[in-house]
Every structure is written in C-alpha cells, then in structure tokens.
C-alpha cells in the first residue's frame, strides 16, 4: 500500500514539477478564465439581465472550457520521447498512474476554479451569498469530477489522430450531471438560499466525483494498454 501511494505521489510530483517548469497549462487556463470574465461582462446587458441570475451557469461553463484547455494537454508532454510508454512499462499499477495524473490535474484546476469565481465576482459584482464555504466545496467537487472524467478521455483522445479536438466531443455529454448540480448549487448559494437547499446538489457532485474517479481507475488500463 505504501508503495502504491508512493507511486501516486511521484506521478503528482512529476506532473506538477513539469508544469512549474513549462507553465503551459496553468497560464492557458488562467488567461482563459480572466478573458472569459471580461468578455461575458461586456456581452450582458445588465439593465435587462441580472448578473446574479446567469453567473452560476457562466462560471461552470468557463470552468469546463478552461479546464479542457489544460487537461487536454495532460498527455502531451508524456508523448514526447515516449515517456508514457516508459511509465506504462514500470511496475506501477495503471490505476495508480491514472490517480496520480488526476490528482495533479485537480491541483492545477482547482485554483483556476477559484480564479474563475474571483473574476466573475469582480466583473459582475456578485454577491457570494451566505455560505462561501459551500460555494468553494461545490467548485472543489465539480473540479474533481471534471478532472476524473477528462483525464481518462484525454488518454483516449491522445491515442487518436484527432487528438485534443476529439476531447470535448467525448467529454461534454458526460459532464451534463456535473453542470446541472454544480450550477444549481452555485446559483442557489449566490442568491442566499439556505444551505439545506443545496445539500442534495453537493451530495450529487460528490457522487459524480467518486463514480468518475472509480470508473477512471478501472478503465484507464484498457485505454492505455496495447
């Protein structure tokens, strides 16, 4: 068990160190979050549409599109010089490889999710409601479910000639539950509804994250093995 955890840890360490050196994905996701906030700010006629009413959906769609920019490239650096093949030919279980990459992606995406929230709060003058902690929890669980699903499908798409182009087509239909429950929870928290009213949504987000993580861990080896 300690070896298994150590293998997960070293994959997270390697992915984060590579990102620290290249800054490819975090910059792309961060820039996308900020620019989306700016554009949405100018695209809404706030005299007719209250930002508070539409912000939740926009936040989650920005997170999904921005996240795909980063997670879609998760296997790009692995493909150079056949590094992924080297990892797969090590004794590390395939599910440990998947969990390591998913955790690394979560570590990169979650700050971006908070940045998205911050950008929309700034540009739309949002009220974060009475339970900002629940808001952050919803974003954390949504981010985890998102990376769990998109890391698996990034492995699928990296093995095709369409590459990253294929990823949204594969992932978007499966993200519908996450967007429904995530945007639902976020919207209600931001209009100050009681916490009890969003508990169900939070539980559904947690279930989505756990199910996609478990399914990804099981299915990853069928994706990457010859």
């Amino acid at each position, binding site marked *: 068990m300690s070896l298994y955890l150590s293998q997960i840890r070293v994959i997270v360490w390697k992915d984060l*160190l590579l990102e620290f050196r290249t800054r490819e994905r975090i910059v792309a996701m961060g820039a996308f979050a900020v620019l989306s906030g700016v554009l949405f700010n100018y695209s809404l006629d706030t005299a007719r549409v209250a930002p508070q009413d539409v912000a939740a959906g926009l936040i989650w769609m920005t997170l999904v599109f921005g996240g795909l920019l980063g997670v879609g490239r998760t296997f790009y650096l692995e493909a150079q010089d056949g590094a992924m093949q080297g990892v797969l*030919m090590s004794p590390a279980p395939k599910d440990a490889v998947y969990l390591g990459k998913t955790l690394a992606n979560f570590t990169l995406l979650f700050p971006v999710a908070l940045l998205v929230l911050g950008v929309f709060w700034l540009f739309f003058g949002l009220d974060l409601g009475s339970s900002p902690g629940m808001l952050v929890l919803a974003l954390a669980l949504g981010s985890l479910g998102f990376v769990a699903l998109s890391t698996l499908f990034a492995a699928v798409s990296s093995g095709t000639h369409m590459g990253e182009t294929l990823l949204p087509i594969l992932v978007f239909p499966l993200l519908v539950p996450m967007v429904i429950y995530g945007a639902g929870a976020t919207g209600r928290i931001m209009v100050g509804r009681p916490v009890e009213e969003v508990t169900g949504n939070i539980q559904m987000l947690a279930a989505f994250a756990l199910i996609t993580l478990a399914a990804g861990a099981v299915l990853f080896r069928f994706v990457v093995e010859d």
Partner: protein
Amino acid sequence: MEATRSVIEARGLVREYGPVVAVDGVDLVLDEGEFLVIFGPNGAGKSSLLGMLGGALRPTHGTVSIRGTPLDFSDGDWRRRVGVLSHKGFLYAHLTAEENLRFYGRLFGLRDLDERIPERLARVGLTNRARFEVRQLSHGMRQRLALARALLHDPDLVLLDEPYTGLDPSAASVLRDVLRELRDGHRTVVMVTHNLTEGLKLATRVAIQVAGRLAWEGPTTEVDRDTFDTFYHEVVEG
C-alpha cells in the same frame, strides 16, 4: 519449486496488426548471461518481437515467461525484472537527468536512490550533467541517460532496440562498454540492431529475422565474422 535457468522463454509468438503479421511464430529461450543480437531488414518485425518480450505489446498468440512466470498484464510485478532501452528514451525533457532517474526509481519502488542515482550517472559518464534538464543534453547524452534509466533497477533481462542510432563514436563507445559489462556480469540481453559490426562485437548468440520469422539463429561460435555480411544478405534475400 525447481529454479529455472532460463531467464526468458517465448513460445509461438505471433503479433498481428490487422491483416499484417509482424511476428510469425517465434520460439526463443535465453539463459542467464546470454546476449542475443537480432538482425533483420526494416519491417522484419524485430521491434514488435522486442515489444512482446518486454511486455509492451500483447502477443496475438503465444506466451512469454520470465524466470518461469508467464507474463500477466494485470500484475506488473514482473516488470521489475525487465529493462528496456528503445530509440525513444522515455525521458522528460523538462526534468533534469537526476530527476528523471528519481522518478523512475520511485515508480520501481527503489529505496536507495541517493546512492544508486549518482552511481548510475557516473557509469554512463553523466555525473557533471546530473542537474541539467534533458532538453539541454545532446542526443548521445540522452541515450546514455536512457541507458542509465533502463538499468536503474538492475533488471535480469535487458532489451535494447537500435541503441546505437544517432550516437557519435564517443557515445557509442560508452554504450559498448556498459553493454560489455552487462554481458560479462551474466545479465541476459536481447538487442535489435541494423549495425552488424557493433552487434557481433557483443553477441553470444545471433538471430536474423525476416518477414516476422527467425530465419536463422545460432551461437556466435558458428558465425564467421569476416563473411557474416554476405551470409546475412543471403539469409535476408532467401
């Protein structure tokens, strides 16, 4: 249980890619300390054969056993016994030489990395490049680092796919010395190469693969080094 001397045993190996049969019924048994060099023209199926011996490719038919244990793809423990050096280095360009070895060492569960990594880097002449990112290294240095990576966990079986590709004479000499150490240290090695001269310098056994089959195989004592080039072409041309 009786200890087996054979390090690797392949029976009836076949690898198909759709309608193309890349490897066609190869049988192979290698004992401890044997250094098999497989020659063959492009498209003969050498890399596919090597991929199946190392567990990178699943055979369409046939079995591979390492130390008597059949390869089980759902359990990667046998991978500790195999080291692979291909024309790709399996290295991360933005990690340093030392970080690459530490990463792979921890995937293999090695505990003595603080001693092992400097020793391996010294063995391939890269001590003064330990903190260089791989993208800053020359091709020859990368290949030497890839060799250090392949040997980091002291595998019983070393698989080498065209290791001399693109190496300058100095890098080729370092590689030759390390491979000679492996042979003299009773490791089992399978090397695929087009380079007849380099291959014959190290081999204890030679095979020539043509159209997926081992068209000829034997110990180097049966090989006349002066006329091997002619013999090779005769075998390849059938």
